[in-house]
């Protein structure tokens, strides 16, 4: 029974969401919109679940005097400060409110810093990828060199055919490969969804019968 009810619910809602795609009738469309609204409600409750998990994990680290508990203090202090600032101001989203100030002047710059690290990581990854050790890596190196040159004015100055070669690489072999992957992904998604709806795939419930 513990497994039958989730499986039955999964089948009913999964089959309904698949069938509604082909039925435009307003009664079916209204039901679909209602189900999506339930999902939103569920998400709101789920955030409470996430917050509880966060507090519990860090509290346990502090209580057990874990080596990296200093980070737990910072995480909990940040969480409680933002919750507190959200409560003390009636409209915390208003520009100039303490909550908004903290968000815009602390979290946003920190996230921007993390994002900017991507540039350095791209350089290090490119260095590793472009070492011409194998035939495939050499092909990748040559293709990347042509594409990079074709994207900047100097490429055209070196040879007028480089921008055309760049376009050909991007629009023919590159696009064909992407489409090939996407067809496989589409079919894989459908097969996975179908296996879950029909109860063939049960690993999402922890496996078993």
């Amino acid at each position, binding site marked *: 029974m513990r497994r039958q009810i989730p499986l039955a619910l999964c089948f009913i809602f999964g089959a309904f969401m698949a069938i509604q*795609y082909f039925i*435009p*009738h307003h009664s079916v469309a209204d039901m679909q919109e209602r189900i999506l609204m339930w999902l939103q409600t569920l998400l709101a409750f*789920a955030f409470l679940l996430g917050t509880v998990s966060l507090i519990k994990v860090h509290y346990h680290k502090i209580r057990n005097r874990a080596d990296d508990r200093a980070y737990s203090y910072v995480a909990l202090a940040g969480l409680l400060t933002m919750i507190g600032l959200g409560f003390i101001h009636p409209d915390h989203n208003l520009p100039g409110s303490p909550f908004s100030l903290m968000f815009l002047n602390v979290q946003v710059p*920190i996230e921007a810093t993390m994002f900017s690290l991507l540039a350095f990581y791209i350089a290090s990854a490119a260095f590793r990828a472009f070492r011409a050790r194998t035939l495939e890596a050499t092909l990748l190196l040559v293709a990347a060199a042509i594409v990079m040159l074709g994207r900047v004015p100097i490429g055209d100055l070196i040879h007028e055919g480089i921008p055309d070669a760049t376009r050909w690489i991007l629009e023919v072999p590159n696009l064909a490969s992407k489409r090939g992957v996407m067809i496989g992904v589409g*079919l*894989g998604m*459908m097969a996975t969804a179908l296996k879950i709806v029909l109860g063939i795939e049960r*690993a999402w419930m922890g496996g078993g019968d």
Partner: protein
Amino acid sequence: MFADKGRLSAERLNTGLAVVSFAVAALFLCPAAALCQSEAEAAADSAAVAPAIAPPASVDVVDTDNDRGGQIDVMWEPSPDVELGRVEFYRIYRSTHPDTGFAQVGRVGYTQTQYVDAGMEDGIDHYYRVSAGAGEDESFSPVIGPVSSRPHWIDKTRINCLVAVVIFVTAIVYFVTSARGGKELFIRRLPGLDEVDNAVGRATEMGKPILYITGLSGISDVATIAAINILGEVAKKTAEYNTRLIVPCADPIVMAVEQEVVKEAYAEMGRPDAYNEDDVFYLTRSQFAYVAGVNGIMVRQRPATILYMGMFYAESLVLAETGASVGSIQIAGTDAVTQLPFFITSCDYTLIGEELYAASAYLSREPVLLGGLKGQDTVKLIVGILLILGVIAATLAATGVIETNFMAPLYATS
């Protein structure tokens, strides 16, 4: 005076006659004859300078096809004055009576010849008329109708998709049934998944944890569900080898499901005591805060193995490069085409696209799941054949060898 390009329009003749009648009546009936005479002259002059705008021709109204109901399509031929640059807009009026009560329901630019009127009650007769206008001037088409909207039970533009789904479902069910009957199914090797056993063994030998990352998507993303399916198989192996498994989550619902999956896997392997709920935890929804958190875990815990399965965005390279810098064996699997090059560059093994969805069946080796995989491959073969036929048909049609592209209905959409 009323001729337009050598033709005499009946409506314009009517307008002209109306102006002349007004002038005659004003001359004989108006008490202030002089004043009325000047008004009549002004009206006549105005009509002479700018004849009334011609209304749109051939207005047609029909119930919108393949809709949820409550919609009517209003179509018309452009007013002849559009070519002369005299029309600025069309207005659409609707009433439930043919003679009175017309209210404006829409306004479109002069280049449009169609309007979808939405929001009315189904089954009620409605009448329409469309006007062409510029500034304050406006001329109306005759009243058209009655017409009523109704909801539709089948979207005919999606029938090709329905046929494809039926073929797909049939293939999957057939191969699953065959697998249940004990038929042997061959599945090609996936080196990335073969390496999962070695990666878990390595972590056990080194006494270091395994980090499992399911990306930033929510539970409604099929890639996340596929990642959760793989997590179940990985958790069974970590339970067997008594290796610590750390799963930081970016979505609270995903976290709840993953906690349950790992717990069940440990229980199934007879090690419920080894499961630690604090190892499957919520981190944050924020993309780069999540990256900072996971990178911190990588640098502090130095996991022997890192698995990236699911949907990833710009954070993929930052995560994978940090993982490579701490010396972990890294296995990635994603259907995000734009992130695949980053994972291929930074990870030891990468599951590309559909391999992510095949991983659960491959790892578990359950015949029923392998049957589903076989059905999926069969449909892919059919799609491949159709693609080749489509390319041949389109090429022959383009070069004029055949007159029509007979494959076109297969990829026709609304």
